[in-house]
């Protein structure tokens, strides 16, 4: 396999128990792979949690990490989700400087990106926006010139894309 270094999105279904996230994260840390983004929450079955994580790694060592993850007793299943075969979403919450003269421009951006205003101060706005990671990147970079006070992204979550009509729904 030719080494390709790019973002990989892994979806790991785990038992919803203490210490499981540390076990998963430990396998990445041991090899020096950084976890770029991470989202964890229980699924519709409260005994299980779904971890969505993005990592920068070459494909061949990543295959090993996936195999090692699968050996963890608390890991129920693991799947790599290529961007083309999945729908990804991320939420951004940001407080941005918004003096009277720029507030209108910021409001326009929020409207264009289907964001929401969460909180209003005399010279600042707190807004939220969700979308695919690229769209969230765009929104963030357009806000940056106004002066970002504080910013938090949730890390992306992803589900497999549904098949076209007549096809089967992707299993997971």
């Amino acid at each position, binding site marked *: 396999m030719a080494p390709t270094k790019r973002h990989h999105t892994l979806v790991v279904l785990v038992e919803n128990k203490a210490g499981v996230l540390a076990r998963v994260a430990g396998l990445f840390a041991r090899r020096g792979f950084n976890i770029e983004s991470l989202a964890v929450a229980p699924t519709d079955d409260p005994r299980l949690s779904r971890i969505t994580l993005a990592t920068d790694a070459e494909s061949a060592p990543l295959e090993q990490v996936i195999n090692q993850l699968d050996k963890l*007793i*608390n890991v129920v299943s693991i799947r790599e989700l290529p961007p083309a075969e999945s729908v990804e979403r991320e939420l951004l919450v940001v407080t941005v400087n918004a003096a009277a003269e720029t507030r209108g421009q910021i409001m326009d951006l929020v409207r264009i990106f289907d964001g929401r205003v969460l909180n209003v101060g005399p010279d600042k706005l707190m807004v939220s926006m969700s979308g695919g990671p690229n769209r969230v990147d765009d929104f963030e970079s357009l806000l940056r010139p106004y002066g970002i006070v504080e910013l938090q992204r949730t890390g992306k979550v992803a589900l497999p894309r549904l098949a076209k009509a007549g096809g089967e729904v992707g299993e997971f």
Partner: protein
Amino acid sequence: MKLNGGQALMRSLERQGVEIVFGLPGGAILPAYDPLIDSTIRHVLVRHEQGAGHMAQGYAQATGRPGVAMVTSGPGATNIVTPLCDAYMDSVPLVVITGQVPYAAIGTDAFQECDTTGITMSVTKHNFLVAAAQDLPQVIHDAFHIATTGRPGPVLVDIPKCIVDPRNPRSALEWYEPDSHDLPGYRPRTEPDAAAVAAAAELIGAARRPVIYSGGGILKSRAAEALLRFAELVQIPVVTTLMNRGGFPDDHPLCLGMPGMHGNYTAVTAMQRADLLITLGARFDDRVTGKVGAFAPDAKIIHMDIDPAEIHKVRRADVAIVADCRVGIEALSAAVAARGGAEAQADRRQWHETIADWQQRYPLVYAAGEPGEALKPQFVLEQLRDATPSDTVVCAGVGQHQMWASQYWRFNHPYTWINSGGLGTMGYAVPAAIGAKAGRPDRMVWAVDGDGCFQMTAQELVTANTERIPIKVAILNNAYLGMVRQWQEMFYGERYSEVYLSPDLPDYKGWAEAMGCVAMRIEHPEEVRPAIDKANEIDDRSVVIDFRIDTTEKVFPMVPAGASNDDIVLDPSQQPPPR
């Protein structure tokens, strides 16, 4: 029935058929030691917790049953990390029980507190922190299941003191006997895929220069007989890795012996020249492959392993079979038989002739000592081998003595060779031998040890003599950390840095006698056999023989670290083979 956690722990262990626990009590595990008095389980009181772990490993490797150790929190737990890691590397089934500070004190830097599950996370197959007394029977049931199924390995169960302390209301539980496991992420696969087996049988039938590369998975899956039948059916030579010595008889005409860094020329070179490696329960360890890019360049790979993560890890497999080795090899034999069996195999007469020629030209050799010179370790091992029953269990530490023992012994029975392969833990031999003898009291057990290794765990001979588990120890005493010395001589321009130990400080004979052993010091060839014969007649005490061996003797052949197996260095007396 109302029990407390300590009672439930003992009852759970008894239910798993545990007959012996190796351990050492302390504050946090103290309440669990009280119901031990009323239990059918035998406890062996060690002198250091590392000894408990290695004894449990030796027991497991000799018997095939899981080894059990029990120690206290903090330093008790950290002292057993090395055995856990050793067992993890060599896939030895262990259940290790550690005490923990009471639940309410966890995270407060309490006396003898450490984050045991955090520390051992990466050196166990799984670990548990027991949250409530009511969980104990289920956790112990799960721990033994995980340790012994799939690819075996160590499982640690960390038990807060409050759960086993009868004075604490948290220790009360209603006893139950769990009969199932709720482990949705744990489904070890044992049955091979039929299509993969068929593809492997096709490759085998057509191969002209095949080698069976057999590893520790053979012994773990009790597949030695299945391997023998398979090898005889297809008439393909077998190499036995350090972890599978005894898994195929050394005296069998198809046996090539040990491959790897200190393997014999024929085993190493047959793999290098092979057109097919039938890999059974082995993992392409760097000590076997040498430089991976130059390893067996013409070989197609069949890789059978119970652990899917081993497939394609080091070398991509052409045919991968995820299966228990015994089940998988039996399926492979059936598939070969269905394709015409022995008659349908390719003509391999030339391959067998080539191998026989290598064996004849490049056997294991050493220069016999002249009278008056220091003992040769190989000579000592040959004498020991010839003077002991063929089913003797041999345990080794790590270093030159380990390699010589693996090279010069004739292993003809499974479960007769116990050593630390993956982790390379010095000091393994003495406690592992005690564990092996505890599990197989009917067998003679010899620890072949180095002087460096012996000094790391010798105190467990006190355990052996107190508990009446008599073992025999042959120290190959060259007054050096011999393997490091060998590397410094060969690769560091004879600059000897911090490897000299002294032949008589400690006084090994006096030390062994102080620990209750019969002890001898042997310096001359003619004394060797009588000393071994005397040791073999003693079965009420442990025996230690301090063999003063040639300091400069090196282990050959040798593939230098990182070099290709083609660059194998033979004994200086042997002509280098044509390239």
